[in-house]
């Protein structure tokens, strides 16, 4: 497709401002001299360009998007409409608090919902994304130990199955990370006990973990970390498996982040905006980012508290993303919340059971909302990799699962169908996986060449990284 710059024609223009005769002179000293090279397009050209680009972008509205750990569920249209209500979208963040009671009411009600779902005492919606929420929680843990003059605690325990953002968020806060090996896909108490000491600030854990397994020893893990003086942080990326069924609070966690753009159905927007809401218990609430919302007899106010770690973002977070999540939670209610997780787990188990006679499952147990295939044997026997299978899925109109993650499984394909896919779709996915298996073993299709039926073939990523061309004209 032509770049927007290549559709540019001199003197084409979309914008027309109202007439105005004012003309104040800006001193030459402050004037831009460098030419602006932006493209020149008429309105219809802009519309056609972006419409064409959108057609070359696969989305949840097109079909199943079983990216493990990403929870690509359907994004209800009501959410979008609520976020665009003038009473929310046209409100300036620095209006007097008496004129934004509706916004604060929304944040407060959303807080009640996420705290009830997680079993926590307090929450903040300031972090803009999951990694930002992790980072914020790590800062709160840092401050907690500091205020207790427990300055030796510089280490954070992270299992080898963790998301890459976990170790990075911890080191951003000056922590040293200690990786512990999993055993049969879950945290080994023996490995954990080896690293516990008075230098441990805490642990970062996902439950169910990235293999889609519920940590059997979860209560012992959080207890052991607490007993050594550390805190337990829950990565909420996989909450979709356990809503209304099992709460991080009861699992023994002190703080957590939620991805509203995963579990709570807000759209990913091609990479964002998300919202990395954080929740915590009484131990940590005095460190939450400022400002805090207070509700006194139905009158909402903002308050800054001295013990807070401070602000982590301008204003109050990705507000309309929170609105979308709230709309979703109100729709579901306590019954729908539970039903959501039950069906998410059922859908994952259904696909797993439909293909596990052909493909090896990394750990063959009842899975939660996702499971991981290990294609090592498949690769040995056919010569085709997890990447090849993924690319072949594209030919059949399915977005591939998460590839090569978690890192502890070599040829990993991580499949998370979510609860919003029908049995018909899941049956189709099962059929396609089986068909690809047949193609691979019969060698009837060279999967290394897949995708074969798409407009674009595989991209040369190596050259791109070696000789980066990062803008028009490079």
């Amino acid at each position, binding site marked *: 497709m032509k770049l927007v710059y290549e559709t540019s024609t001199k003197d084409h223009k979309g914008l027309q401002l109202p007439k105005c005769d004012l003309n104040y002179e800006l001193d030459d000293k402050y004037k831009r001299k460098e030419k602006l090279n932006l493209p020149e397009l008429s309105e219809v050209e802009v519309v056609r360009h972006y419409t064409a680009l959108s057609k070359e972008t696969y989305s949840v509205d097109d079909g199943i998007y079983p990216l493990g750990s*990403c929870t690509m569920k359907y994004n209800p249209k009501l959410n979008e409409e609520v976020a665009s209500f003038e009473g929310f979208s046209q409100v300036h963040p620095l209006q007097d608090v008496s004129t934004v009671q509706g916004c604060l009411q929304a944040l407060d009600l959303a807080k009640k919902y996420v705290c009830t779902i997680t079993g926590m005492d307090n929450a903040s919606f300031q972090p803009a994304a999951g990694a930002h929420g992790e980072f914020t929680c790590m800062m709160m843990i840092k401050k907690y130990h500091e205020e207790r003059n427990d300055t030796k605690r510089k280490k954070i325990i992270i299992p080898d199955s963790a998301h890459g953002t976990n170790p990075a968020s911890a080191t951003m806060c000056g922590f040293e990370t200690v990786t512990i090996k999993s055993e049969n896909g879950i945290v080994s108490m023996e490995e954990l006990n080896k690293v516990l000491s008075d230098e441990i600030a805490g642990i970062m854990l996902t439950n169910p973990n990235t293999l889609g397994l519920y940590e059997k020893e979860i209560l012992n893990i959080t207890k052991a970390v607490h007993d050594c003086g550390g805190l337990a942080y829950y990565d909420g990326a996989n909450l979709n498996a356990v809503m209304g069924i099992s709460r991080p609070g009861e699992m023994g966690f002190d703080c957590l982040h939620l991805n509203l753009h995963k579990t709570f159905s807000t759209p990913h927007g091609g990479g964002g905006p998300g919202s990395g809401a954080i929740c915590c218990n009484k131990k940590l609430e005095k460190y939450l980012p400022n400002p805090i919302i207070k509700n006194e007899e139905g009158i909402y106010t903002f308050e800054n508290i001295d013990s807070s770690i401070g602000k982590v973002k301008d204003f109050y977070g990705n507000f309309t993303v929170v609105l979308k999540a709230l709309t979703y939670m109100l729709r579901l209610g306590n019954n729908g919340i539970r039903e959501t997780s039950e069906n998410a787990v059922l859908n994952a188990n259904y696909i797993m059971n439909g293909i596990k006679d052909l493909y090896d499952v990394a750990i063959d147990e009842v899975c939660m909302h996702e499971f991981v295939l290990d294609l090592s044997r498949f690769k040995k026997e056919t010569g085709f990799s997890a990447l090849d299978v993924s690319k072949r899925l594209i030919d059949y109109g399915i977005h591939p699962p998460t590839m090569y993650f978690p890192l502890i499984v070599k040829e990993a394909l991580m499949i998370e169908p979510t609860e919003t896919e029908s049995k018909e779709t899941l049956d189709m996915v099962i059929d396609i996986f089986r068909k690809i298996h047949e193609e691979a073993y019969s060698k009837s299709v060279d999967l290394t060449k897949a995708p074969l039926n798409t407009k674009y073939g595989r991209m040369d990523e190596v050259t791109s990284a070696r000789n980066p061309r990062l803008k028009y004209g490079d």
Partner: protein
Amino acid sequence: MSYTVNSKKEILEMLEACGVDDISKLFEHLPSGTKYEGLLNLDEGKSEMEVYNFMKDMSKNNVVYPTIFRGAGAYKHYIPSAVKNLSSLSNFVTSYTPYQPEISQGLLQALFEYQSMICDITGMDVSNASVYDGATAACEAMNMCLDRKRKKVLVSSSVNPSTLSVMKTYAYAYDIEIIEVDLKEGLVDKEDLKDKLKEDIACFYVENPNYYGLLEDIIDLGNIVHENGSKYIIGCNPISLGLITSPSEANADIAVGEGQSLGIPLSFGGPYFGFMACKRELMRKLPGRIVGQTTDTKGQRGFVLTLQAREQHIRREKASSSICSNQSLCALTGAMYLAYVGPVGLNEVAKRCFDLAHYAFNQIIKIDGFTPKYEGEFFHEFVIKTPIHVDIINQYLDNNNILGGLGISDNEMLFCVTEANSIEEIDLLVKLLKEVAL
């Protein structure tokens, strides 16, 4: 109610395929003590109509001002219908980060074009595909400049206080020190800057226009900073770049800013997007997603997420930033806005903001008791000293459906005027200010 699909009959068939007869059996293996018995203490689910009405009523508990003279980090600009419409195209809205380039070329190309446009307006070499907002962009930029010997950061006291406060939080995490540079007449005091530039200063961050709307001497400041071997970061308002000196003209090493002005609604503070662009030599330190041009197996031009060796999922604990999700859709909206206005339009919008703001300024200071706080040239915001308490003024304006300037002290008001304001609105503002001060 949930957004699940399957009928009871289908669910039973699926359970059977999984070898269980009830959905609760799939959770039987959860250890005792971790299960929540019964239903959560929340209302039961509601119909779409009920939730729509409930949220609509809630939205009515907010005041929407038809006329706004407040900025201070969030700006009301006119958003063209085409931009609004395109930014809600469902394929952009409901796609994930483009991990599979073969079926995400549209999104990847749009982000590549976004990066190109950010480089155009800032004059810089390389842009990423956005970060959370303007404040966190400044934090990430500061982080790019740190090294073993240089662990202190200078920040002008004229930057947006919200940005400064976020930078201080990040500095707490990074265990580094932020030192504020004093002001003279609302602008960076160059002598104080020179005094504070020591060997261990990693960088200097300044905003232009600054929080008070004033234009800093960014070219001279750059020379001073570079003489010390420190890096120079400029936070800029993207609309203003249609008119005023660009970061590259001031020899900035990194340009950052809040992109909200480019077609994003106010939305009580978010989501917006932060943009970040830098000189080529800093490219591998730039955090976040970056899209690069390449070719596919058929020899066609294509785009991929590139330079991933910088990122958290590869470098893990060695990554300098944990950012993963960004603000892609907002960044795309910004690109759509820039494509819509083009080079001439961006200049026109900037010049209109400048003209209307200067008209407002000149009218307001004619009123008895209203005087300018600073002498310096400004873009579209300015500080006025008021003869009466700012709260009284704003209450009076509020009675007339106008959101007045932001009170930054009892008797100082930071006004903002954009192209979305009309001369008639400004004349009404001036009339009301006269009345209230009588």
